[in-house]
């Protein structure tokens, strides 16, 4: 596919040119950087730090109306995205782009989920190559790469004053066409510089874990007393699941609003006791030990059995953001050495 050069000081012009798209980008909000719909390119925060929230929410929102009920008890789908503009998510990290690849089979395999799939199909991902990975990044241990275009439609590499822009898919080509007025051709020197950065990035990943054999260890040692130790610090706050680009569990709840009612789906967390609590009071995962074990089982055993890959992209958010320093990589190493 084609390569272009985008001057950094013309990025706002490039974003403005995407008139046929709704553009989501990281914005600063109550002290956090989150992916939101932007109306003015100046809102975008593109001095990218790895955002505490992945862009998962653009396609799988934290809260989403599934059905609306009228007074006659008829259930209807809310007006979907039909007829609306396609979406561009700008500033996606390669790990988060892979995160969508992990979510896709969940939502499209046996019972295609129209809410997810419709947004997924009309959304483009424009990503940034991670030339400076973060301390807890471990994407290279779970099949990722900080300079990988996997799952992206366009990949940008920061060359200092310019972005090296690679078109990855035909959807991406369309975006490049819309912004063509501000794009130029890279020199061969810039091409070499980009390749050099791509080659260096994986070596900058500081945390590694050889996941080979972990699935069978988790299964074999499911009843091991060590799980209690691994979960000792966990306070069941759920931050690991809320910030995870591959976590997909949700709750379905009805709400009444002025004589009408909606059925919503809302992110849920396997860290919460209520997640598995029966109405009878029985709970198959009553303590944080079973819950933390289930999360690791899901990511590193169940997901491999179902989809052939770990349900983890190595973004490191669950490690960085855990208030109790529960460390997934360290825990995996303990299991591996059992």
């Amino acid at each position, binding site marked *: 596919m084609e390569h272009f050069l985008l001057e950094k000081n013309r990025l706002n012009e490039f974003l403005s040119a995407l008139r046929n798209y709704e553009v989501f980008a990281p914005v600063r909000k109550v002290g956090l950087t989150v992916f939101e719909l932007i109306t003015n390119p100046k809102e975008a925060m593109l001095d990218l730090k790895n955002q505490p929230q992945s862009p998962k929410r653009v396609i799988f929102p934290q809260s989403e109306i599934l059905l609306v009920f009228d007074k006659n008890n008829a259930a209807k789908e809310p007006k979907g995205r039909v007829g609306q503009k396609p979406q561009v998510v700008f500033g996606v990290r390669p790990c988060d782009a892979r995160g969508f690849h992990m979510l896709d089979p969940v939502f499209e395999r046996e019972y295609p989920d129209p809410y997810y799939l419709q947004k997924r199909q009309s959304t483009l991902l424009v990503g940034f190559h991670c030339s400076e990975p973060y301390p807890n990044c471990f994407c290279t241990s779970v099949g990722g790469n900080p300079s990988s275009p996997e799952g992206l439609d366009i990949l940008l590499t920061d060359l200092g004053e310019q972005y090296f822009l690679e078109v990855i898919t035909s959807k991406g080509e369309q975006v490049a066409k819309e912004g063509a007025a501000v794009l130029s051709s890279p020199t061969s020197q810039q091409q070499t510089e980009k390749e050099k950065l791509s080659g260096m990035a994986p070596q900058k990943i500081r945390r590694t874990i050889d996941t080979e054999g972990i699935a069978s260890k988790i299964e074999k040692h499911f009843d091991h007393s060590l799980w209690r130790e691994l979960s000792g610090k966990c306070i069941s706050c759920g931050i690991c699941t809320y910030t995870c680009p591959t976590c997909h569990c949700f709750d379905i709840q009805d709400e009444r609003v002025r004589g009408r009612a909606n059925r919503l789906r809302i992110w849920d967390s396997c860290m919460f006791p209520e997640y598995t*609590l029966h109405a009878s009071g029985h709970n198959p995962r009553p303590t944080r030990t079973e819950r933390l074990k289930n999360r690791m089982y899901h990511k590193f055993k169940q997901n491999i059995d179902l989809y052939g890959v770990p349900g983890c992209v190595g973004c490191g958010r669950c490690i960085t953001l855990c208030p109790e320093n529960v460390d997934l990589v360290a825990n995996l190493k303990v299991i591996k050495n059992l």
Partner: protein
Amino acid sequence: MSSIHNPYLPEIGTVIKIIDETPNIKSFQVVLNNPEKMKNFTFEPGQVGQLSLFGVGESTFVINSPPTRMDYLQFSVMKAGEVTSALHELAEGDQIGVRAPLGNWFPYAQMKGKQILFIGGGIGLAPLRTLILFMLDQRADYGDITIIYGARTPNDLCYKDELKEWEERSDVNMILTVDNEFPGWDKRVGLVPNVLKEVAPSPENTVAITCGPPIMIKFTLQALSELKFKDDQIITTLEKRMKCGIGICGRCNIGTMYVCKDGPVFSLTQLNELPAEL
């Protein structure tokens, strides 16, 4: 919203009859409002459905009327949480949402010609009822049918009219028990797994199908093993907290299996390969 079938969208049905089974269990007979959809509705014994009340929520129940009797779909509901409490407030004629059928079913084809042993506790008779009626409607296909059923007190036994009918049938061996002595109760007293051991049915060419509270299932499986039933002769149907019913929302997994989609029916052979998180 799109051309893809929406698996979350319920069909609307009408509750045509409500039966008070016990002080906290009611059965609801439901007919889909769309006659074409009702006529074409097919399911297998053991499959479940989601009943929903708009503005309240949705919960999973087994379809406990058999596919051999398609005048209505019956669901039995124990009052336990928010949705079930609201369901108990329904009156005949009220509208209800139905998403069904979901999940797998009893492997009845493999049970033909065998002796059948049903072991149920409390509301756990509901899924067994589907298969019992299904088998009684095709009685010649199956060998001896034994039903061991217990509840806390005689008042907590479900489907009392049918229990009486089954007791009177010469081709059903019906054993009823309650947990403790109760005024006027002249049948067995004792927990279901203990009664099972007293009755001691032979495992010879037999399939045992059990459903009840998790603790009953646990001890029933132990009792069956003591009676020399092999794991592949033991079938159970499980309960989990469920939401989506289609294996996406996550919570009902046992190991790599989702109870809503890959279950609720499992053989003990299958369960033994999964983590013990019942």
